[in-house]
């Protein structure tokens, strides 16, 4: 029991030391948020050495755009992890939500489109599917008290199967203009998806750091009984978080759909591993109550920068996958060493 041994030393300290302690304590807390920044700078330097194109605006925008869609999954997962749950089904929602929208709005004749609704409905449908998936998840996890891991694993398979079912295993083309716009438009010379991604992360930082709701996520993830004792309506917070996460996944899917101008039956397949890795590397604990939205962002940014460097270095595409896995493990080991604590 380390606390017991630490106690006398702590209180034995003379009182006047108080203010000095405040400063260092706060600085340390801030530093933890920026733990990955040195690594990101190091990769930037390595990247520049590997290929002089790395630090050019075009390449940086390219990195940000390729990660913008999946980073919304990371944001969603970070929220769910902080509240002390897990959501594996995010990657399937990422594909299914725009898939359903395409299915209902693409004209008959191209692929398996039904052409039931006008293109105007594509985005509302995408978001509605996100809400619906979140409601089903929450129903099982919060209302019926089932284990979140198993529930969302089941949902992952069901939703993936649904997308394969409605698409007949094929890719949706000829999407309505409204579905393409967000993923392909340029705002002020920068792709809209980057703006949207940065905006949503900024909102995430604000909500998690500066609203009572956001703080209640930390409280629930840290100690649900204490949160209840403090009067937090824990079930309601869990419902909202799970639904918000699914909606974020749907938006991410929509952005990717716009960039590729299509919805593949396998959209999002396997993304959940990268998502978990990015969140954990970014300092979000799998046990809940710990981590920040900003940290999660640096996690996914680091992974995508490394990938970009590997591509620039001319590593054959067949090997990228294996290297990716190795990088994730190395990054975890490094964050364990620098964090000094067992990964939870």
């Amino acid at each position: 029991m380390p606390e017991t041994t630490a106690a006398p030393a702590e209180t034995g300290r003379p009182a006047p030391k108080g203010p000095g302690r405040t400063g260092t304590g706060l600085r340390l807390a801030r530093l933890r948020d920026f733990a990955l920044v040195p690594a990101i700078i190091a990769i930037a330097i390595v990247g520049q050495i590997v290929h002089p194109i790395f630090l050019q605006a075009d390449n940086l925008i390219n990195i940000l755009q390729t990660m913008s869609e999946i980073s919304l999954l990371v944001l969603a997962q970070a929220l769910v992890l902080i509240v002390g749950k897990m959501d594996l089904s995010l990657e399937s929602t990422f594909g299914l939500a725009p898939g359903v929208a395409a299915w209902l709005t693409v004209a008959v004749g191209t692929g398996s489109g039904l052409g039931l609704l006008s293109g105007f409905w594509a985005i509302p449908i995408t978001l509605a599917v996100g809400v619906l998936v979140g409601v089903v998840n929450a129903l099982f996890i919060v209302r019926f008290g089932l284990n979140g891991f198993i529930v969302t694993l089941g949902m992952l398979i069901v939703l993936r199967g649904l997308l394969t079912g409605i698409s007949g295993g094929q890719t949706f083309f000829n999407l309505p203009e409204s579905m393409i716009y967000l993923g392909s438009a340029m705002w002020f010379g920068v792709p809209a998806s980057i703006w949207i991604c940065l905006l949503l992360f900024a909102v995430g930082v604000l909500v998690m750091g500066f609203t009572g709701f956001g703080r209640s996520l930390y409280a629930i993830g840290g100690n649900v009984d204490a949160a209840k004792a403090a009067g937090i309506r824990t079930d309601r917070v869990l419902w909202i978080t799970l639904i918000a996460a699914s909606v974020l996944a749907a938006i991410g899917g929509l952005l990717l759909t716009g960039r590729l101008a299509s919805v593949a039956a396998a959209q999002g397949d396997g993304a959940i591993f990268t998502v978990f890795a990015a969140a954990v590397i970014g300092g979000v604990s799998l046990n809940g109550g710990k981590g920040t939205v900003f940290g999660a962002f640096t996690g996914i940014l680091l992974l995508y920068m490394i990938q970009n460097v590997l591509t620039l270095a001319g590593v054959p595409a067949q090997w990228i996958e294996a290297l990716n896995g190795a990088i994730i493990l190395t990054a975890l080991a490094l964050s364990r060493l620098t964090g000094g604590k067992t990964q939870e």
Partner: protein
Amino acid sequence: MGASTSPSSVTGPIAEAERITKRYGETVALDGAHITITPGETHALVGRNGAGKSTLVSILTGLQEPDEGEIRFGGRPAPRLPERDAWRERVACVYQKSTIIPELTVAENLYLNRHDHNGLRLVSWKSMWKKAAELLETWSVDVDVRRPAKELGVEQRQFVEIARALSFGARFIILDEPTAQLDGAAIARLFDRMRAMREQGVTFLFISHHLQEIYEICDTVTVFRDARHILTAPVMELPRGDLVAAMTGEAAGLQERKARPSVPPDADVVLDARGLTDGDLYAGVDLRVRAGEIVGLAGLGGSGKTELAETIAGLRAPGEGVIEVAGRRPRAGSVPDSLAAGVGLVPRDRHHQGLIPLMSIADNTTMTVPERLGTAGLVSGRRRDELAREMITNLAIKTPGPELPVNGLSGGNQQKVVMARALASDPRLLVLITPTAGVDVRSKEFLLGKVEEIAGKGTGVVIASDELDDLRLCDRVLVMFHGRVTTELAAGWHDHEMVAAMEGVELDA
């Protein structure tokens, strides 16, 4: 210094409970018990395990409703159970289990779900830090409110919890065994803090197993025994002997028990432990047990007796010191090595460490002896069941057969399965930790009889317990207090001697 006059001018009790009865199924947890707490005093509530203290606390804090009786605060009836805020304004409790969220800062723990907001409806950290710092300053708690709560020691966390309780407006605070996890210096600081708060008009109900603390800090003491109120008296007017007698019951005396044959002084030494020390848990313990001898380790929770017994059995490694079992020296902290050296263990809590609930009696009892179940690592079901049947007969376990899952058994029979497992390896040294906890009277007698029988066959036995019945059959009992062996009692001790020794009270003082 305990009987300082109360500073409050308010007359009448700040809290009172009258004729409270609470039943859980068959068991009566409180039987017409009452307590009256006057403003400004520090009131002690004492009693042995099962006396009804925890039940009274949960009723007084509005977590449970009494079956009969009434609670009043300041002369008015208590609020209804769902009105948590109303309860919080009247009474606050610092439970033994911490309700602090480790990852959040101290300030946020204090104002969780009561965050300050700025004009934009966002959390205003600055004003919250200021408010929290002011709150802690009011009660002179010197903790930086911006540190994560996990960095605080147990003592500081407790202060933070007390301050939080006070911030809801309650001036009546229940402290449930606050000293259990603190060392001596920290306890002294807690008491200083309590005295200062008493000057500021805070009333305490103080629950502790340590009687000397009650003489140090409390004005009035109430004793519960067997779910009933026994007495309430000013602490200074109650000699320690009388207090112990009230807790144990007047009829305490020598229990009739056959005298055990004395152990020959030349019997083999089966356990030789020297200089065992592990941080604050226990220090400088020497223990020798001869074949056929039963040695008790007595002490309250936090005395270190459980940890010491677990160390002897190989569940944990000592910081310093040597353990020799029957001439061998098992690797410290290795259960397989200790098993091989001849140690059998009945662990502290059968639900946690003793049993695998869904597995059968046969699997559970033979878990320690895989090598006797078959050759080359294969388990012969027939041989396992044979072995299990032997043990079922030997320990009179009531079951239709060895294949029944152990969670289908009663508590007493489950404990017999744990005992059977410990005995399966024919140990030279048997270590028992609270072996009769949560067991009915008849199984208890049987289990203790079995222990004597095993000792009679030449096994050395160590029993770590605070149950007097467990300790009564020991040839000698080492009493531990705050990690040190303070007293050694030979068989034939009186109950009040033992209780006083465990509580750390000098009877003649």
